[in-house]
C-alpha cells in the first residue's frame, strides 16, 4: 500500500504536511533519521505511520509523563488499542503484567528512567523492535533541556537492543544540540531532515514595564481585548492562580488556572473544557500545553519569561496550529530574570550542600551497591529536594562506578554544578538580551537556531511593526447567556438521552 493510502485510511488525512513524507520515506528506506520539524506540524505521525507499515513494535521514549499520557490518549482516540505506557504511574502488579504481555503491544511508550532498569531492558531485548523513537530529542542533550541523566544512557540502550531503526524527533535544536543527539545515540549514517523553526503565522511582540502592577494591568487589558482561545504562561503556580482570580473579578469570564498542583480530576476537566471551547483562557505553568492538540489557539502570553529559547519557541508554538494568524506576547518587567535565576538555583545543590555531602560520604563510605538505600538520609542531611537528590545520586553512582575517590567526587561535582549554572544563566541572559534588543525578533530567533531567515513582510514582530487589530475580538465576551439555569433533569436528559429542551 502506498503511504498516501495509509494516511487516508488510518488517519483520515488527505495530504501530508511539509516534512512528514520525507521523514517517513527515509525511515521506510531503513535509514536512521533525525528530524526537526516546527512545533505542531505532526511529528507523531512520522513514527505512527511507518509503525503501521513495518513488522514489529514501535518503542517511543518520551520525556514527560503527561506528554506520554497525551500521546497514548491520542492513539486510543484514533482507535488504536494496542498501546501501552510504561512509567511510574503503573502499580507494581500493572507493571509486571504489562511486561509479561509486552510483545502483544504495537506502540510502547516508556520513560528513559524506566527503560534503564534491568528487568525492563531484559524484556525489551526479547521484542522485535521495528522502530525506536526518541520524542522531544533535544532533551537528550546537556545543552538542550533540563538535565536528565538517564537520557545519556540511551546510546547504550540502543546498542543493547541491537541498534534498531531509529528516529529522533524535535522542534527545537541548535546544530550543537543536534550533534549531541547523534553522538549520544550513536546514530551512524544518520539522515538529518531539518526544517525551519519559524512559525510565520505567529506574530511576536515584546512589551516592557517598569513595575509588576503595570504588567498585570496590561495582561488584564490584553485578556479583555484579544480574541481567544489563549494561554498565559507563568513560572509560579501561585501567581497563575491569583491572576486567574483577578481576571475573573475583572469580568473576564471563562478563565481557569492550570498547574501540576491541582487534583487530577480538576486538571482533566479544565483541559477538556478548554478543548471543547467552554474555556477561553488558561493561566498555566509550563505543565500545560505539551501534547495538547488544540488547533485554534489564537494567542500565547508569557507573563514570566521562559528559561531559554527552546522552551519559548515550543510554548508560543502552541498557537495557530490551524495555520491562521496568531500572536505571542512577552510581557517583561525589569528584574523578571531574578525569578528564573532563583528557580534554577533551586534545582541544583549549592556549594554548602555539597560540602555536607562530602562529610557524609567520608563517614558513611557508601558503595555503588548500597547507595540507593541512603536516599532519605541523604536528602535529610544535605537538605536536598527531589530534583537535587535525583541529580546528586546519579552523579554519585556514576562516580562510584568509575571507582573515583570521594574527594575527587565533590570537587568534580562542584565543577559540574558550576558549569550547569553558568550554562543555564547564560541562556537566561540570552533571553533577556533578546527581550531588550532593537532588532527583528524573528530573525534573531532564527539566528539562534543558526538559520538565515528572510525578513517577513507582514505582522512579523514589534520591531518590524504589526497591527493588533486583527487579533482583537469583535464582540465583547457575552457572559450573560451562559448562566441560563437549566433544570437538572433536562441537563441529564441532554447528556444521556440526547434530548434537548423543547424536544420530547
Amino acid at each position, binding site marked *: 500500500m502506498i503511504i498516501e493510502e495509509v494516511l487516508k485510511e488510518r488517519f483520515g488525512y488527505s495530504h501530508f504536511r511539509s516534512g512528514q513524507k520525507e521523514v517517513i520515506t527515509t525511515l521506510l528506506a531503513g535509514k536512521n533519521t533525525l528530524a526537526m520539524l516546527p512545533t505542531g506540524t505532526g511529528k507523531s505521525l512520522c513514527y505512527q505511520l511507518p509503525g503501521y507499515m513495518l513488522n514489529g513494535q514501535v518503542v517511543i521514549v518520551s520525556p514527560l509523563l503527561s506528554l506520554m499520557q497525551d500521546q497514548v490518549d491520542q492513539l486510543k482516540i484514533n482507535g488504536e488499542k494496542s498501546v501501552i505506557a510504561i512509567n511510574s504511574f503503573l502499580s507494581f502488579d500493572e507493571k509486571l503484567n504489562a511486561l509479561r504481555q509486552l510483545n502483544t503491544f504495537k506502540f510502547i511508550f516508556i520513560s528513559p528512567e524506566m527503560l534503564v532498569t534491568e528487568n525492563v531492558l531484559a524484556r525489551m531485548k526479547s521484542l522485535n523492535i521495528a522502530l525506536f523513537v526518541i520524542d522531544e530529542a533535544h532533551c537528550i542533550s546537556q545543552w538542550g533541556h533540563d538535565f536528565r541523566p538517564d537520557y545519556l544512557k540511551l546510546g547504550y540502550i540502543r546498542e543493547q537492543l541491537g541498534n534498531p531503526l531509529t528516529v529522533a524527533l524535535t522542534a527545537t535544536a541548535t546544530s550543537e544540540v543536534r550533534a549531541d543527539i547523534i553522538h549520544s545515540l550513536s546514530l551512524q549514517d544518520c539522515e538529518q531532515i531539518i526544517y525551519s523553526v519559524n512559525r510565520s503565522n505567529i506574530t511576536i511582540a515584546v512589551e516592557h514595564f517598569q513595575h509588576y502592577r503595570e504588567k498585570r494591568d496590561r495582561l488584564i487589558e490584553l485578556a479583555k481585548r484579544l480574541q481567544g482561545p489563549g494561554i498565559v504562561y507563568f513560572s509560579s503556580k501561585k501567581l497563575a492562580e491569583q491572576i486567574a482570580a483577578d481576571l475573573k473579578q475583572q469580568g473576564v469570564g471563562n478563565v481557569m488556572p492550570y498547574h501540576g498542583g491541582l487534583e*487530577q480530576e480538576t486538571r482533566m476537566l479544565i483541559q*477538556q473544557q478548554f478543548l471543547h471551547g467552554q474555556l477561553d483562557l488558561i493561566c498555566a505553568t509550563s505543565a500545560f500545553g505539551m501534547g495538547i492538540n488544540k488547533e485554534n489557539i489564537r494567542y500565547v502570553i508569557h507573563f514570566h519569561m521562559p528559561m531559554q529559547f527552546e522552551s519559548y519557541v515550543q510554548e508560543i508554538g502552541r498557537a495557530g496550529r490551524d495555520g491562521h494568524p496568531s500572536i505571542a506576547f512577552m510581557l517583561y518587567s525589569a528584574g523578571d530574570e531574578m525569578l528564573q535565576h532563583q528557580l534554577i538555583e533551586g534545582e541544583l545543590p549549592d556549594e554548602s550542600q555539597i560540602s555536607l555531602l562530602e562529610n557524609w560520604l567520608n563517614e558513611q563510605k557508601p558503595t555503588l551497591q548500597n547507595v540507593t538505600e541512603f536516599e532519605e538520609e541523604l536528602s535529610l542531611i544535605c537538605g536536598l529536594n527531589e530534583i537535587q537528590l535525583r541529580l546528586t545520586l546519579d552523579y554519585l553512582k556514576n562516580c562510584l562506578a568509575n571507582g573515583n575517590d570521594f574527594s575527587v567526587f565533590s570537587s568534580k561535582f562542584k565543577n559540574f554544578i558550576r558549569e550547569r549554572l553558568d550554562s543555564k544563566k547564560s541562556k537566561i541572559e540570552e533571553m533577556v538580551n533578546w527581550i531588550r534588543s532593537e532588532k527583528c525578533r524573528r530573525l534573531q530567533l532564527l539566528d539562534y537556531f543558526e538559520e538565515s531567515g528572510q525578513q517577513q513582510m507582514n505582522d512579523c514582530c514589534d520591531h518590524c511593526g504589526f497591527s493588533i487589530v486583527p487579533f482583537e475580538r469583535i464582540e465583547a465576551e457575552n457572559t450573560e447567556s451562559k448562566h441560563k439555569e437549566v433544570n437538572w433533569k433536562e441537563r441529564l436528559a441532554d447528556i444521556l438521552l440526547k434530548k434537548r429542551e423543547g424536544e420530547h
Partner: protein
Amino acid sequence: MFGCYKKSIILYCLHRIADERTVYSVFHLLNGKKSSQTIQDAFLFQLTPFFRVYPSMTRLQFDQHLTEMTKVKWILEYEPSQYRLTDLGREALKEQLKKQPLPVNLNGWKYHQLSVVFWERLSLLVQVISNLMYSNSKYLPIQRKKETHLWLKQFLQDTKMDRQVLAQKVFNEVVDCLENSTSIQPEFLISRLTGAETIGLTKEQAALQYSMDQDYFELQFQSILHTMLSVIKEKPVQLPLLNKVIQSAETEFTMTVSAQRTEELLQQGFTIEEIATFRKLKRNTIEDHIVELALNKPDFEIGRFVTDKNVAEIAEAVKKVTSKQLKHIKTIVPHAPYFEIRLVLAVFGDSL
C-alpha cells in the same frame, strides 16, 4: 463573617466534643485518620457524618482557622490544645447553621470510601453512554484510573443492553434516586457530569455557579453521593444498574490494617496477651484494635471480653453520667478496667 464553611464545621465539632478532647482530635476526624482513637471519638461524640469530609486539609490550614477564630473570640484556648466555644462562638455557629445548615444525609464514616469509587464510576459511565448516544467515538475519558476503565468494560459486557435502552435505564434510575430525596439539590451533582457535548464543572466552578463557598459545596456534593448510596442500598431491586455500580467496590474496610491482623489472630483463638507478645506490640494497642473491631463489626461478641455482669453495670454507669469522658464513668464502676468501659461504649454507645 465566616470566610469558609470549614470553620463552621470545626466549631460544630468542638462544640460536640465539649472539653473532652484536644482540638486535634477534630483535625484527625475531618482528615479521616484511621486510628482507633479517632474512630472511637467519632462514635462517642456522634461526629461520624464528618469523618474524612476534608481529607486534603493540612494541619497548617487547620491551625490558621483556629487562629482566626481565636482572634474574633469565637473560641478560647483554655489549656494548651484545648479549645472551648465562647458565647460569641456559639451565637456565630447558630447563625451560620441557620444560613447554611449541615447537609442532612452526610455519612462520612459509612461512605467516605465507597462514595469516591461511586463517583468515579458513575461519572465515567455517564460520559461513555453519552458518547455512545451521540455516536462520538473520539473523546477522552474524564476518569483516569485503570481500575475504573476495567470496571466499565466489564459493566458494559455484563449488561449487554442496547445503548438506547441502557441510557434510558440509567437515566431513570438516577432520576429516581435523586428525585425522591428531599433536602438535596441534585443540580450540584448533575452540573459536574460530563457528556458528549459539554464537559462537567470542576468543584470550584460549580461552587461559583451556585454562589457558595467551596467547602460548603464540597459537603453538599458529598451528601448527595451519600444520599444516593443509601437509597441504592435501601432498594437494590428497583435500582439494579446503580446497584451494580457499587458492587465489588464495597471494601470490608473502615478498619486499620493492623486491627485487621489482630482480628485474624483473635479468630484463630489467640488471647490478647498472646497477640501482643507475638506481634511485639503493647497490650494497649491490641485493646485499641479490639475497640475498633467492636465499632465496625455488627456481629462483634462482647461476651468474649466483658462479663455480662460488667456490661450491665457499665451501661448503668454510662446512663448516669452526663459526660462521656471515661474517667467520670470509671468513678462509678471503679472495678471495671478502662478497656471494658470503652468496649461497652463502642457496642452500645448510641443506645445508652
